[in-house]
């Protein structure tokens, strides 16, 4: 079960693969230093990397107390005009806050030296799939993001309990209105269907009974923190998954995670996100076994997976379609440029279908082939051209330029003396693997049109061609 990869097989392609999947990719020099560690230490380095969150100060967000003051002001406003002015100023500030918060997280992904933590946090964000479109409170979205991060590599049952008390989640799935005589079933249903077991592994009765256990969960309007309102809680007997007791929410979660199906459900999802789209039942069973044996320790489980030979099989390497966020972070890393302007960034991720803090629905992003349509693929190609050329017209936008790609660093003059000299390092930079003979031949015939040493424009155009391909969409 998950035999470790032999040291002998370790090479730069596998190191790059690890960096892509456990993080968001990197430059050749980052890949080489990972390679020099050997597989075991390379994997360990992702888990021992120090949380560098203090390097990424959170943008100013409206605090709950300030929001409370605003709501009071709105109530006491005398005229409609006054209300309108208050409202539109507040809404504008919330929109800006949301954009700043997105940029904050994406920059953290881009520059952190602990990328696994961000990668797993993004996984849990997709899993719990809470959107500011309904929560409408950037501060709560940030709080949830920090909660996801602090439990990301810990034990799943703890995370699940933390999420049941998370104020953004309480708003997202209507838990705040659930009380003794009128339990709201939305959270209880999604807890089982989407967060832990999957459809078909619980009954409607289980939904109704467990909904009663999550009554009385509230958000304190003035502090923005969780509070329990005990007179709204239903302390009566509940019959849940074959057991009877006066269960509270945490006890319901304990019963859920004790189901073998829960380990399978989480195991399959982890595998799909980090390894490959269609794990066999046997693989799922093995991950589930691992999760059960270590008490759902996500960090420990990922350690075993990243060290296993299964993770480095040819059916896995360079076979995953990059999600839009992955694409963006990985591309700016390899080009050694900062993220584009916040507006371009927001538009692009909207077009490509992955706006963080705004997943499309309760199920999060489907991922895999669902990322790709005729429109999104063309947009990816154009976005690559934009990042390389810095010319906004490629995206149809006016005026906003992006950083200049340091071409002489990416492709040193000393390598520009002939097609193979240029292509060997450049291909590795862009694709992290050897491309097919057909593709290589195309690159060579492109280069043969131009004199050596190749000018910047030739190298840049070649990179546009390379990045406007199906291959570049994979990692």
């Amino acid at each position, binding site marked *: 079960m998950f035999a470790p990869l032999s040291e002998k097989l370790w090479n730069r392609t596998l190191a790059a693969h690890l960096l892509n999947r456990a993080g968001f990719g990197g430059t050749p020099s980052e890949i080489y230093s990972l390679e020099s560690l050997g597989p075991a230490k390379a994997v360990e380095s992702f888990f021992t990397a120090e949380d560098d969150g203090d390097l990424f100060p959170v943008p100013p967000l409206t605090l709950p107390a300030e929001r409370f003051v605003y709501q009071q002001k709105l109530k006491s406003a005398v005229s409609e005009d006054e209300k309108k002015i208050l409202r539109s100023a507040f809404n504008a500030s919330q929109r800006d806050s949301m954009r700043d918060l997105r940029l904050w997280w994406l920059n953290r992904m881009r520059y952190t030296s602990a990328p696994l933590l961000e990668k797993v946090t993004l996984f849990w964000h997709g899993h719990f799939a809470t959107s500011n479109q309904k929560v409408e409170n950037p501060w709560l979205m940030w709080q949830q993001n920090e909660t996801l991060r602090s439990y990301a590599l810990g034990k799943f049952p703890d995370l699940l309990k933390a999420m049941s008390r998370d104020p953004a989640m309480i708003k997202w799935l209507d838990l705040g209105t659930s009380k003794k005589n009128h339990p709201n079933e939305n959270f209880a249903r999604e807890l089982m269907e989407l967060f832990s077991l999957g459809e078909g592994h619980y009954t409607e009765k289980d939904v109704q009974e467990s909904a009663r256990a999550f009554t009385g969960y509230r958000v304190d309007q003035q502090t923005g923190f969780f509070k329990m309102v005990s007179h709204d809680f239903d302390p009566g007997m509940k019959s849940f998954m074959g057991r009877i007791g006066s269960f509270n929410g945490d006890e319901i979660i304990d019963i859920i995670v004790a189901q073998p199906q829960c380990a399978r459900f989480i195991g399959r999802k982890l595998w799909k996100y980090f390894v490959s789209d269609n794990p066999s039942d046997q693989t799922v069973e093995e991950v589930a076994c691992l999760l059960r044996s270590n008490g759902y320790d996500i960090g420990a489980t990922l350690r075993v997976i990243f060290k296993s030979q299964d993770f480095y099989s040819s059916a896995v390497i360079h*076979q995953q379609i990059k999600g839009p966020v992955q694409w963006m972070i990985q591309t700016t890393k390899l080009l050694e440029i900062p993220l584009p302007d916040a507006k371009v960034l927001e538009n692009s991720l909207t077009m490509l279908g992955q706006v963080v803090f705004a997943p499309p629905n309760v*199920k999060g992003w489907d991922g895999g*082939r669902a990322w790709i349509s005729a429109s999104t693929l063309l947009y990816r190609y154009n976005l690559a051209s934009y990042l*390389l050329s810095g010319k906004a017209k*490629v995206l149809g936008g006016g005026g906003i330029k992006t950083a200049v790609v340091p071409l002489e660093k990416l492709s040193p003059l000393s390598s520009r003396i002939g097609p193979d000299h240029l292509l060997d390092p450049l291909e590795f930079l862009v694709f992290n693997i050897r491309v097919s003979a057909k593709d290589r031949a195309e690159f060579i015939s492109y280069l043969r049109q131009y004199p050596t040493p190749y000018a910047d424009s030739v190298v840049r155009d070649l990179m546009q061609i390379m990045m406007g391909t199906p291959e570049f*969409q994979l990692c």
Partner: protein
Amino acid sequence: MKTPREQTLHTRRQFLRTSMLGGALASTVPLFLEKTFLTLDSMAAATPGQYATGKDGTILVVLQMAGGNDGINTLVPFGDDAYYRARPKIGLPANQILRISDYAGLHPQLTGIRDLYGLGNLGLIQGVGYPNPNRSHFRSTEIWQTASDAERNETEGWLGRYFDNCCKGADPTVGVAIGNQTPQAFASPNPQGVAFSNPEQFRYMSDAASDPNSANMFVREMNTPDQEVEGTIHGAVSDNSGGTIGMIDGAGNNSGSTVEFLQRTALGAQMSSDKILAITRKTKSSVDYPHTQLGNSLNLVSRLIAGGLPTRVYYVSQGGFDTHANQLPTHDRLMTDLNGSLSSFVKDLKAQGNFDRVLMISFSEFGRRVAENASGGTDHGAAAPLFVLGGGVKPGLFGAYPSLTNLYQGDLRFSTDFRSVYATALEKWLGAPSEQVLGKKFPLLPFI
């Protein structure tokens, strides 16, 4: 006279000779590409006006009125005192209403739409909604887009499920959304359909400094499948399909490796983008449209229809309906835009001879509260009327106007489930099995 098959082969050879796509397509190509060649061929013949894309393929246009249109001030119950009691400030005077019946009539700006009603091209379906209405924009839009029950969270869109179930192997342009984002209605595990707001941007725009043509050509080469697309092609054009729907064995989105999937998508994207550009650069409307987002979108749709894009479903939207405060001037402007845009669209389609092929249905995530609020606006409500429009529509008022006094939490009670409207459009217009697409059987309505 050549058969369609011979014509296709001939055109394809010609196309390949002149195309930068080169030889890799030589022996088998996806069916939708064959259709493309047919279309290009008929376009090359320079028939003015209308290009057939198949035999009388029907087209559905979905119009989203985003924000929650005030249905009560759209189809106004002027014959009911309760209307004026509930809306002392924003009730529209009875003498300005464009009468449809003694009880209800259209907003004063909807003159063109009233004329279409008179001509028998328009149906008004009253009291459309769903059980346990949700008043969140986000959630209620999701319910309409996925056609789910209010208690269930579905992710696939109803049109996405239609494409999946009924249009396998179709051209990517089987669904076209005008806008920057693919609507959730198109969502599916194997997304089909394209979205763009400006056709000039729905294409590969390299910014090659050295030699743009050469760079472009190489990108095309790189995006051509290594192997020929597997499978055999059944028949050249299937008659019942609007020219797009057929099956390619083994070429469904789920088959093959991930790279092959990406290559097929890339090829499809290029072909559709070429086609769309060719059409929009060449086709002009003979009709003036309002210079609004909706006007521009419908103008584009009519040109794509005229140019023979093999699309079954177009999706356009108009925003700004969330009229919480000082509603009258805002709603007036929205109705003016709607009226002008739809009138131009119909005039255009009639001039092209395509009006009989098109059914348009409108929707909004909810109607608005019966009683006006203190700010001269209305808050989120529930049931509302919707428009159905087209050459094949049976005109008239369908369903009864919901009572203004027997309310559900202050809102109109629905009498027609919106999924009955979808089911009718699917069954009677697109010829698709609605139960498969909607997951349930909904009663069909008599508007077609």
